């Protein structure tokens, strides 16, 4: 039983050096899928960067291209039907050399994967290979990247399991995924991802499939580990609550594009894109008890449906659902504009929103 204080990471948000080194720089990334029905422009010109030690959250609706972006970074897009058609992914690995992951060879990528950049996935139940022990699976990465033998690998695995707080870790390295609960498995995933001390951890909705209580455990753990290891995290989610707890900066995606980007406080306090606003408003909040009188009788929903990725509107992708839409919006894709202090928005009416929100 722990009653953890709201964990104060060693390197809290405010400590982040604004001029810290850029670890990953994604520029104009376009990843398309060529399907029978047509070209799915899943990621259509995404640009963002992550600094060393920072947590960047990517939020957005289902199908907005979050996973494809992360898989593009790992170069794990199935080809065919997928293809990175344009853009650069610049990454500075442990060796200090900046590489463009879009053009790196497959062998180079294999060296980076699991070693410099690790990834954890949404589904802890299916993301582990059911026929190997968790120890084996953790050790595999260690053996691959650190030239260790199996025995040493298993030793590291046990240590990692201990690190992520699995009780009786020495015993459990020899267990199989199905012997563990979802929360445990997600811990194993994290242990595996961290086993080679990566510079960047890509977490694609790591807690979406988990119960709130387990989610809390995992988020807590991730924060603790980040503080210890000092890696950067690219945190993908569509849960704004999680974003609020985890992120330093936030990238909001919609229809394969970044629609807003900024410091987490700015995004929540003064969103500059109608989609972000809609998202914030449609979130039911459990904490209103602490803020009496906020309760709304109805949620403020975003009308309409998530757009069909095959057939995105020609202008602003959010225009059909936007209550602020003006005819202008459907003319052309709005540019991602800096609204000041690194807060970017892809809305032509962003200037009006500071007032609206205030």
């Amino acid at each position, binding site marked *: 039983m722990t009653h953890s204080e709201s964990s104060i990471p060693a390197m809290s948000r405010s400590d982040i050096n604004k001029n810290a080194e850029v670890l990953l720089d994604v520029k104009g990334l376009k990843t398309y899928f060529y*399907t029978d029905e047509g070209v799915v422009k899943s990621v259509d010109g995404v640009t963002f960067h992550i600094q060393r030690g920072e947590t960047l959250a990517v939020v957005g609706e289902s199908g907005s291209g979050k996973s494809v972006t992360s898989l593009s970074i790992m170069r794990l897009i199935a080809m065919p039907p997928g293809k990175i058609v344009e853009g650069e992914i610049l990454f500075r690995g442990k060796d200090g050399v900046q590489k463009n992951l879009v053009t790196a060879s497959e062998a180079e990528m294999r060296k980076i994967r699991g070693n410099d950049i690790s990834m954890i996935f949404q589904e802890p139940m299916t993301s582990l290979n059911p026929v190997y022990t968790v120890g084996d699976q953790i050790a595999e990465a260690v053996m691959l990247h650190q030239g260790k033998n199996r025995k040493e690998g298993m030793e590291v695995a046990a240590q990692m399991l201990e690190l992520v707080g699995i009780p009786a870790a020495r015993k459990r390295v020899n267990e199989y995924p199905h012997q563990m609960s979802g929360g445990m498995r997600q811990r194993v995933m994290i242990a595996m991802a961290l086993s080679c001390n990566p510079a960047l951890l890509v977490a694609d909705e790591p807690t979406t499939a988990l119960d709130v209580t387990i989610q809390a455990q995992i988020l807590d753990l991730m924060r603790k580990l980040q503080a210890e290891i000092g890696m950067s995290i690219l945190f993908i989610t569509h849960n704004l609550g999680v974003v609020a707890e985890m992120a330093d900066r936030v990238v909001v995606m919609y229809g394969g594009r970044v629609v807003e980007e900024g410091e987490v406080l700015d995004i929540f306090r003064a969103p500059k894109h109608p989609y972000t606003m809609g998202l914030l408003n449609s979130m039911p909040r459990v904490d209103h008890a602490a803020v009496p009188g906020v309760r709304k009788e109805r949620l403020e929903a975003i*009308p309409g*449906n998530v757009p069909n990725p095959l057939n995105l509107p020609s202008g602003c992708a959010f225009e059909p659902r936007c209550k602020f839409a003006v005819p202008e919006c459907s003319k052309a894709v709005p540019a991602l504009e800096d609204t000041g202090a690194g807060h970017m928005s892809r809305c032509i009416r962003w200037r009006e929103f500071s007032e609206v929100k205030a």
Partner: protein
Amino acid sequence: MTAIPAPPKTNARAQSQMQVAWGQFRKNRLATIGGIFIILLYVMAIFAPFIAPDGLSNYSTTATTRYHEPTPLHIRDPKTGRYGLFVDKFAQTMNPDTFLQEFRPTGERCPVRLFVRGDTYRILGIPGNLHLFGTGNPDCKVFLWGAEGLGRDLFTRTMYASQISLSIGVLAVFISTIIGVVMGALAAFFGGWVDNVINRLVEVISAIPYLFLLILLRSLFPQDANPILVLFLLLVILAFISWGGLARTVRSQLLSVREQDYVTAAYSLGSSQSRIMLRHMIPSMTSYLIVTLSLAIPGTILTESGLSFLGIGAVEPYVSWGTLLNQTQDGGIASITDRPWMLIPGFFIVFTVMCYQLLGDGLRDAFDPRKRQ
């Protein structure tokens, strides 16, 4: 009220499961080719008596044509210089030195014409005597693909054989599918001892070597029973044996469908068991069944040839590709070296099985929701 969300504008066509599958299927070129050839084969089978120049069992006891070579079709008569399709009349002698049947043109020529009158037949009950091609002369026939051991035209026999080979597989599989589905459904639906008994039954039947079962069962049928009916029943029995698997699959499939939310929804609406069975559970099997069927039919065609190998396949005066191939097999090496045309029925089996496999594969992919975006 929230704004009524617009239904997606694209994809506006209402597509049924079948339509979707059809769309997917058409994209698979090999499968489409397989399907087209299957259709052609069946058309061929239906019109076999018309396509064939001769009657099924016609041969001569005077001018014997045992293992007649394929007769070359000539278009120009070297003597008269006239043009027109014709064949030579051959005389057969056995070379006492090589023991081979030798055919020498007699010099007589018989014109091959289209739509000639000849042997009478019935197609779908309609009598006729018109043949696509032929000489119209019973003493001087076209042996497009040579002749078999009694001197009967192999082309004709192959055509007629397709009727049995192609229909018996379908019919037997069809019937056994019904048995399999009903058994599986009963087991799934009633569970308990019914399930147990059916499972045991399936096990028992599949535990007995099927060769043995077939050979013995064959001898149980009354002697005057129509041999085709007997063969057909045997294949059904055989299919039933091998379809213990089907019953099991149906059972487990139905059990899993029963757990689906939409079935629960139907219960909660007050559906009766039979309604759920008919409206929800059985239709959920259709795509699976179509695919399994398309793969089981060629299996039965092959099995029939196996039965012929054991001498319990189609018997005179009926022929199937299996029996024809078995004659080839009986001839041993001689069939390959001295009369390779006897291999043609085998080619039909291979071809049909292959087409069915391609078709089945295509269907499987087409019905597989995972293969679709």
